């Protein structure tokens, strides 16, 4: 089924993609798409953790569950070796521009049929141009109802393309991404909140990484020099490795992030 031989943790009970061409290209695209989805889930989780700085004390159970999910993704990425690749890829690209990222589970309003979106994208305008680029194996068997389609081979993950109930999110087609290394400090900050009040998250990301593992710190310094990549450069790098091309957000963009997050989270 997956000639690339990558260990699959999602044993899909449903029928897997029967019409997938079992070629090396397809397999590579599959695993790339899977990694993109996983990356997006990671982004989403990190954003959720970020939102914890509200007026009322956040729900500890929810934060713990999200943090565990983040750890799980991290572990898997480390096992796959993609973690290393990601850090390396980022270390080669300097940039100081914010790269938006599309969050998983959101249907692109421009297209009716759901399509997986790369983890890191340019701002809204260029987004649509990506749609065709990413190889969409799962689209070939999009369910009759667009809402119920998905990537069956990813098992429960497949629901990513179902956004019937997220009508308000359809307006939102760009997303600032959250960099990886934030998660560790986020976790700290989230749980730390319950101990003693920490100063509100300083948008200056250096502070966030002050007590993070060295490995994360490397990623962070790398991210600070975000790549000045064009959209197609991004995709090429993605096809090689599910690199997180998102860059650390700039101070001014965090307001945007908050705004976007408000919309996503809903009321």
């Amino acid at each position, binding site marked *: 089924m997956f000639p690339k031989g990558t260990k699959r*943790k*999602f*044993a899909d*009970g*449903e029928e897997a993609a029967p019409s997938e061409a079992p070629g090396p290209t397809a397999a590579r695209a599959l695993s790339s798409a899977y990694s993109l989805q*996983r990356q997006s*889930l990671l982004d*989403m989780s990190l954003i*959720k953790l970020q939102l914890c700085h509200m*007026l*009322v*004390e956040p*729900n*500890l*159970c*929810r934060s*713990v*569950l999200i*943090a*565990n*999910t983040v*750890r*799980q*993704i991290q572990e898997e990425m480390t096992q796959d070796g993609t973690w290393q690749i990601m850090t390396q890829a980022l270390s080669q690209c300097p940039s100081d521009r914010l790269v938006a990222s599309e*969050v*998983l*589970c*959101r249907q692109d309003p421009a297209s009716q049929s759901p399509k997986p979106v790369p983890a890191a994208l340019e701002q809204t305008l260029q987004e649509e141009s990506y749609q065709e680029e990413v190889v969409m194996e799962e689209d070939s068997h999009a369910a009759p*109802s667009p*809402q*119920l389609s*998905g990537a069956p081979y990813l*098992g*429960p*993950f*497949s*629901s*990513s393309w*179902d*956004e*019937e*109930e*997220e009508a308000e*999110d359809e307006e939102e087609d760009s997303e600032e991404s959250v960099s990886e290394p934030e998660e560790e400090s986020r*976790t*700290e900050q989230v*749980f*730390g*909140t*319950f*101990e*003693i*009040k920490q100063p509100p998250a300083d948008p200056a990301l250096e502070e966030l990484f002050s007590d993070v593992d060295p490995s994360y710190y490397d990623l962070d310094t790398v991210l600070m020099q975000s790549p000045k990549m064009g959209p197609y450069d991004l995709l090429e790098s993605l096809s090689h490795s599910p690199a997180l091309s998102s860059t650390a957000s700039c101070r001014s963009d965090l307001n945007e992030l908050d705004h976007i997050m408000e919309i*996503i*989270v*809903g009321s």
Partner: protein
Amino acid sequence: MGEDAESPKINHTFLRDYVTEADVISTVEFNQTGDLLATGDKGGRVVIFQRETESKGDFEEVGDTGDSGEYNVYSTFQSHEPDFDYLKSLEIEEKINKIRWLPQQNAAHFLLSTNDKTIKLWKVSERDKRPEGYNLKDEEGRLKDISTITSLQVPVLKPTDLMVEVRPRRVFANGHTYHVNSISVNSDGETYLSADDLRINMWHLGITDRSFNIVDIKPANMEDLTEVITASEFHPHHCHLFVYSSSKGTLRLCDMRASALCDKHAKLYEEPEDPGSRSFFSEIISSVSDVKFSHSGRYMLTRDYLTAKVWDLHMDKGPVETYQVHEYLRSKLCSLYENDCIFDKFECVWNSSDSVIMTGAYNSFFRMFDRETGRGVTLEAWRESSKPRAVLRTRRVYTGGKRRRGDVGVDSLDFTKKILHMAWHPAENIIAIAATNNLYIFQDRVNPDAHTQ
């Protein structure tokens, strides 16, 4: 608050129902006799309903049970106010997380209500007499001019209109650093437990300035935190036993006789994970949102995101029964994760004979499962389809196969209409369902009946 008939809504065909946040019901609980039903809401208010008794009427039929079954508002009071934690610069919500009634010992009723931080004991008493004929005070309570008093009289109790008084009797504060999710009154009638995310305390009902910490799962380093307590309850008969559930889907039965700090469980209940269905969401959907002992004390009922499970206290290897509440959501977990619905905490309840279990779902649906047959039924708590005295019809979510009229598609489900809180009368087939800001009370008569309030 529970009387939606008094608050006509805007034509919601075109507009979403505009619900005042403070009116959202956050807990429902019958007392031990079922005559009283208490609801708590996000605004910190408690509304107590009392069941009407026909015996108060002019006639009684032979063989009549005596209860017309209608619940009317008995008393309303503000239990908790919003607060502010100055140390953390965070607000403390006044939302009532749980209400538990104490067993009745005299004419008054007592209940415990809690928000995130503080538990309060309230005394609910009736007054239908008042003393009249004071010597020093006149009828309005003003002091009399002593020179006008020429004789002494003994004050007499005269009947008056029924008044329900609610007074706070105890305030159990500063016991919790984290958010209280459960309270449970012990069968000994003297103590109760309160559980937050990381700790469980045991209190004596008469002592407010100290409590015993009986469970503490806080790690030395908060970064190592991976599991929290989600619910806890005392055993209905054994005053030394209690159970608590975790976010990892485990149950721990603890025996307070073993040690003062029950960090070490007496029994750990855990279902082995099915490696085939593992996903990034496995842990989240395994998190237990509610745990309830059966009335017999022999079983425990738990609710996780997709299922309700019955556990035998003697069997820790796994549940003895598993009921699918809304399995059709399994393929939508990612969306539900994004909109946070996956973190919704549904409650579950037993019926009086432990033969039926009930839990809530989305789209104003709730599910009942008959343990003997294993069959489940879907019902709806929705104003439009429930007229007073109307028979509740069963609903169905369409998941494939032959589509029947009235079936609801998975994509049409309204995830904002969640049935999280509910209660079952301790003796009869009467259920109270909280649907956002509305309270529905359904009864089962000889001919299945239902009415809304």
